């Protein structure tokens, strides 16, 4: 084991709100084996080199969405990225771009959580359904329309990829719009009219200029850019229908 252990340099963009006015890079030498993820590299730093380095993680298996960070400038899940991919080069870690840094690799995600809440990320049924009526049925085709968009794990890598979000933080952004689309397209849902108002707004789909990087970095193949741009069409139709039907045709 010890023989094939190599050492990689990991630079971490540190920011300690009590002491620092702005972030600075701190370099660490981390011994690693081929099966170690970048997250494990940072855990090594915290356990053995500097206990004050802060970062988020939980599942270690690309499911909880909490370990996202900029790895050499690219937003990635650190538990799904391996140190060996960068060796013998060095790795530079930075908190997810476009979010305020709370401390080191930890971002302030309250803006995203607020947006997520605003799109009503749950099924709003038309009328309450009694238990005896059984489950809501859905055909494979109906499921297929939403399956891809429901795989989102709220990791916010897409926000860190989106320069429009960095420039205009009021923009609803990729994941929130992808999830909005997921619920709007669900045959069991009936809150489309309310959600359309968020989409139609200037901060909604029209904040997107199709840079497309969000879909490239998404670890779950959600393709938020597709959801956003499909909804530019929906938003236009909704706008035109408003002249004919008062509720935007919904």
């Amino acid at each position: 084991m010890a023989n094939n252990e190599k050492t990689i340099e990991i630079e971490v963009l540190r920011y300690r709100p009590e002491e620092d006015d702005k972030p600075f890079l701190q370099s660490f030498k981390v011994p690693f084996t081929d099966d170690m993820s970048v997250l494990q590299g940072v855990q090594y730093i915290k356990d053995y080199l500097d206990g004050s380095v802060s970062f988020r993680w939980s599942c270690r298996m690309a499911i909880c969405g909490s370990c996202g960070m900029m790895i050499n400038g690219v937003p990635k899940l650190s538990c799904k990225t391996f140190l060996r991919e960068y060796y013998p080069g060095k790795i530079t870690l930075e908190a997810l771009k476009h979010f305020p840094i709370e401390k080191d690799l930890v971002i302030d995600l309250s803006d995203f959580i607020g947006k997520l809440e605003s799109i009503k990320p749950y099924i709003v049924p038309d009328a309450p359904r009694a238990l005896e009526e059984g489950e809501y049925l859905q055909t494979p085709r109906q499921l297929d329309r939403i399956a891809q968009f429901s795989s989102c794990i709220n990791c916010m890598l897409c926000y860190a990829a989106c320069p429009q979000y960095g420039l205009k933080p009021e923009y609803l952004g990729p994941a929130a719009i992808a999830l909005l689309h997921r619920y709007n397209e669900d045959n069991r849902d009936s809150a489309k009219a309310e959600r359309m108002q968020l989409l139609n707004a200037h901060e909604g789909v029209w904040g997107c200029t199709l840079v497309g990087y969000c879909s490239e970095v998404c670890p779950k193949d959600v393709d938020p850019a597709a959801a956003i741009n499909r909804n530019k069409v929906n938003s236009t139709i909704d706008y035109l229908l408003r002249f004919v039907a008062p509720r935007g045709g919904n």
Partner: protein
Amino acid sequence: MSTRKPYVRPMTGWWLKNPVYIRYILRESTAVFVGIYAVILLIGLIRLSSGEAAWNGWIDAMRSPGAILFHCVALGAAVYHAITWFAVAPKVMPPLYFKGEKVPVEKLVTAQYILAGVIYLVLLGLILWS
């Protein structure tokens, strides 16, 4: 007492910081060339309506090396824009189903090239024929 002091990183020079952003800016700037090309065409139309001499003058101007160079660059820009557009268009439209199966994006991308090819051939045929 809260010691929170979230740090907001500046966005200056963001478009140079990632090859994806550079490609995006390139794609968007193709619009400048297409726009100038449209203006040149429009001027041509105006010259056409103001008599033969004016029209011939415009044609001569179009034959200058500068004009030819610009048209080559504008063509390149338009083709680059078309390629990027063809790559994303099938993703941004609602899914198409054929016999109950979702039509794969790659097939739709190819279909656009075929369609564009057919349109060009028809146009070329019309021009050569007239």
